[in-house]
Every structure is written in C-alpha cells, then in structure tokens.
C-alpha cells in the first residue's frame, strides 16, 4: 500500500503494527505535504521533524523486535501550541511566550507518545485560545485548506487545518467555548469536546479553568473515538479529573441509532443561522430518523443567554490565569527600573488586543462592587443553562444543532467588531458552561461549496451514545 492512501489513524496504526508499512514512510509522506503546502496554510508554528523521525524509527524498531508499539503506532499527530511539550517551543501564539520551552510535557502529550503516535509539530491558534478564526495569532493567521481566502475557524485553527490538509492524521486542540468544534466544522473534519473532567488539563496552558477541555481533530469518527480513549481518563495531576477511564466509545460505535431519542435544539435553528447550514442540519435530522431514531424538536431556553454568561465567566477566569505572565520567570521581559514597571511594560508589549480586552473585561467583572452584578449573575445563568439541558435530557438521549452559524468566512471579515466574532460560538458555548460533551461531524457543504458541520450534544459522561449518533451520521451521509 502507499502512504498517501492511508489517512485514518486506525488504518495507519493497523498497517504499522502489522509491518505492512513503516512508521518512517508514513511520517515522510506527511512531512512532504507540510513542506509543500504549509508555507501557504501556516497550520504550524513549529515543525518537529527531527524528533518525529527519531520517534518513528523507535516505533519501527519495536515492531521489528515483536514489542507492542502502541494502539496509535506511527500515527502523525499535530499538537495545539497551548499544550506543553518539553524542550519544544510552546507559545500559545503569543509574543509573551515566544520561544519558551517548557521543562515538562502535558499529560495528553505523554499518553499519545506512549501509544506510539508521532508528534509532528505545534499548531497555530488564536492567542491564548481567545478567538474564533485564528486571526488573533501573534504570528499570522492560518488559512482554510478548502479555500485559502477564508479562515479555518478558531481558536484551534492550526490543528483543524493540519488534519484537513493531510499534514497530520490527527491533531489535538482545546475547547473553551467551541474552539475545537467550530474550526472542525469550518474545515470539514471531526472535532470532539469531551465531558469536562474526562481529559486531563495538566500541561494545558489555562484560559478558562472551569471551561477548558482538550480533544481531538480527526478525519473519521472512529479515529476520534480511538484518540479519546488514549488521551482520556483519570489523571492524579489534575484535581478536576473525573476518577474513571474514558468511556469505551469504540466498542459501541456501530450499535446504530434505533430507538434513540434525538432533540433538535429550537433556539439554535433560528435567525442568526445561515439557511444553508440549517438545511444541512435538517438533512442530518432526517437521516437519523430514517436510521430508526426518534427525532423531534426541543426547547432549551437558557442557551440564548450562553454568550452573555460566557463573556463574563471566561474572561474572569482568564484575567486570573494570565496574571502569571509577568516577565519574572519565563517568556518575554521588557526591562524597566522597577519590577512593577517591568511587569506592566512586559504585559503591554506581550499581549495582543483581544487578550487585553478579555483580561480587562474579566478584571472589571470580578472587581469590588461589580462582582455580584456581573460574575455572580453569570454563574447563576450557568446553572439555568445546565438545568434546561438536564430537563431536555429527561426526554432525549442526544441533542442536535448546527456547529457554526455559517460556513468559513473571509479572512479579515469579522476582525473589527469583537461582538460579531463572538457570535460564531452561539451553538457551542452552552456545552462548555454546562460541562457536557459535544462532537462536530462534517455533513456536506453549504451553498458556497464550503464544509458544514453538525453538532451532536450529550449530557456529562454521555460519550457512548454521542459517538454512536455521530457514527450513524457519518455512515449515512449522502
């Protein structure tokens, strides 16, 4: 078989494990595509080709010796640049961490390596994961491989584009308000935000600690299941890690959807969603009905307040999480006569506009006199959103919605007005606030020929049924 015919992680791992193809050959094929096209796409901030070749050789040696090379043996993986990788620059696409090399690996990085996956590089993102287009990167935007005049989505745009362009078979991103699912939809790949607490955040550079989750970008639902099972499950290094293994989603992928109850979220099917995206979502609902699911509409009223609550909670948490960037121990330092002046000069020079905006918004929301009116109120709205979801899940096993209101928009089209940009996440944000799970599955194209993704939502720890429905959508796609 040729390298270029192997794209899915499951296929690559099977071929490498059986010795049908070498991990080195798989890797070289991916590196060649990176060399040919990433100058234009800019999915990567940093390519780790030498280390990757060494890792690939080690996998091949294991196979030759009859040792188990791991379930993802030889699978090239791209890592979002907010995941700590020891000795490899980890920048969050920010000037304030430009060139910083962590002295330790994130848990998910360690687990992927132990599974035999081959890290090929660190991907571009919106600075500190704040954005929906990857245009907030301090190092230039990533372009959508389907149409390079358009954005790949964000904040994990580089990881999404890397998989869409065949630079890596799988990629990891992080999702705080939709930053895996929305770019997955815009680039036509699968993207998963697992239940909060199912994937360790140890080594993930924090944006919103009660919202952040790491998850995979893949070309197939089966690959997403395989990656989740490798990276997920309890980690003693993360106090918010749920004390269990990742649910056995691969085992139940093809169980079908007969009798499953699917609820289309009314509030996510109205104005503000492009007609072609609505059409594809309805087509997905019909396909599930044809496959034996019971499909109906359901109202989850509080989700309409998700954007408002999120843009108080997330910046509040970020203002605290980003306080550590002070020029003292790592990263950028702009010198000044006193330490306070140095910290201020460093932060002013090191952070981009969107980051500054959110830090100030968060500081304001938490400040004396405003705490209850803003942050406190937003946390109560969060409870309402969770309650309304819980009520919906009394009558439905999964929910369905568009992932993104539109297909990929043009580079530069939404940069001037923050609120316009924030509206890209109306369908994804509520899941993060609730701590639930959701997956975006590619489901055809819009009128402009660009990818459309539909979102399957599940309650906390509902991954098994969520993946079943996602697989059914993928299998039945016409």
């Amino acid at each position, binding site marked *: 078989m040729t390298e270029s015919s192997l794209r899915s992680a499951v296929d690559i791992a099977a071929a490498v494990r059986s010795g049908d193809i070498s991990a080195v050959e798989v890797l070289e094929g991916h590196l060649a595509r990176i060399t040919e096209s990433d100058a234009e796409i800019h999915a990567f901030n940093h390519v780790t080709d030498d280390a990757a070749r060494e890792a690939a050789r080690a996998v091949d040696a294991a196979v030759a010796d009859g040792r188990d090379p791991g379930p993802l043996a030889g699978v090239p993986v791209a890592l979002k640049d907010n995941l700590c990788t020891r000795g490899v620059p*980890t920048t969050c696409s920010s000037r304030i961490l430009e060139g910083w090399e962590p002295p330790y690996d994130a848990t998910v990085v360690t687990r992927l390596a132990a599974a035999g996956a081959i890290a090929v590089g660190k991907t571009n993102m919106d600075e500190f994961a704040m954005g929906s287009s990857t245009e907030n990167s301090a190092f230039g935007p990533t372009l959508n491989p389907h149409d390079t005049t358009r954005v790949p989505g964000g904040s994990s745009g580089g990881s999404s584009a890397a998989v869409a362009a065949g630079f890596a078979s799988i990629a990891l991103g992080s999702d705080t308000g939709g930053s895996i699912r929305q770019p997955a939809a815009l680039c036509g790949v699968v993207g998963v935000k697992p239940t909060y607490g199912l994937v360790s955040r140890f080594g993930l550079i924090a944006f919103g600690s009660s919202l952040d989750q790491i998850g995979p970008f893949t070309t197939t639902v089966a690959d997403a299941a395989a990656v989740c099972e490798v990276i997920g499950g309890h980690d003693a290094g993360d106090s918010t890690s749920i004390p269990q293994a990742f649910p056995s989603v691969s085992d139940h992928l093809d169980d079908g959807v007969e009798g499953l109850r699917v609820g289309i979220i009314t509030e996510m099917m109205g104005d503000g969603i492009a007609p072609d995206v609505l059409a594809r979502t309805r087509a997905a609902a019909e396909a599930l009905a044809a496959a034996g699911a019971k499909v109906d509409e359901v109202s989850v009223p509080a989700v309409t307040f998700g954007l408002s609550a999120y843009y108080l909670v997330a910046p509040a948490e970020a203002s605290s999480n980003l306080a550590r960037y002070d020029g003292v121990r790592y990263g950028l330092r702009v010198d000044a006569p006193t330490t306070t002046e140095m910290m201020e000069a460093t932060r002013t020079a090191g952070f981009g506009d969107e980051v500054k905006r959110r830090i100030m918004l968060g500081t304001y929301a938490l400040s004396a006199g405003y705490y209850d009116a803003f942050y406190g109120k937003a946390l109560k709205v969060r409870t309402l959103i969770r309650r309304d979801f819980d009520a919906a899940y009394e009558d439905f096993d999964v929910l369905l919605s568009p992932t993104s209101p539109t297909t990929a928009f043009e580079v530069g089209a939404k940069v001037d007005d923050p609120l316009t940009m924030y509206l890209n996440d109306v369908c994804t944000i509520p899941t993060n606030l609730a701590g639930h799970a959701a997956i975006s599955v590619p489901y055809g194209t819009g009128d402009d020929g660009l990818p459309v993704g539909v979102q399957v939502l599940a309650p906390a720890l509902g991954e098994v049924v969520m993946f079943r429905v996602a697989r059914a959508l993928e299998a039945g796609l016409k």
Partner: protein
Amino acid sequence: MTSTTGSSTSGIDLDIWEIVIGLEVHAELATRTKLFSSATNLFGGEPNTNIDPLTLGLPGSLPVLNEHAVELAIRVGLALNCKVQRSVFARKNYFYPDLPKDYQISQ
C-alpha cells in the same frame, strides 16, 4: 485584664471598651511535601531546587491538595477544641515577584 472605673492613663475608658486580643499563629505542618505541590519542603536547600511546575507557576501547572496536610490541620483543630467545617479554596489575585501565579490560593 482588670477593669477599673474611669479612664486609664492612655485615655481609654475601660467601662465602655473591652480589650480583645487575637493571635494569628502560623505553624508549619510536619509534611514531607508542600501544600499544593509535590515538591519537598526541606529547610536549608539551595535556591530553586525544591521545585515543580506549580511552585514556579509555570503555564499549564495545576495544584493538587496534600492529604496529610489536611489530616494534620484537622487534628490540630480538634485538639484545640475548634469546630472543623467545610472548606473551599478561592484565588486572591495580586502581582508580586515572589508570587509565581500572581494569585494566592486561599481558604
């Protein structure tokens, strides 16, 4: 503390005012590692050797609470006839060069 009628030489009327003195006592718990970090807490070591990602406030680091510290603190509380109650941690945010995360994790 005796109360006297009329004022003392400092002008405080002890008929109206009761003197209450509180003692905030910091006592180091006899653990092997720190409260949130698994770095050792040995006294007298070289600077910056008892370190892990959390003690330096490195990006991506996370705190995990030391079980033995909690146990010892509860023991002291019970020994001193205190009421042990539910405890939640919050962040006190301020900037200082020896405060690695630029916030303090406080009860």
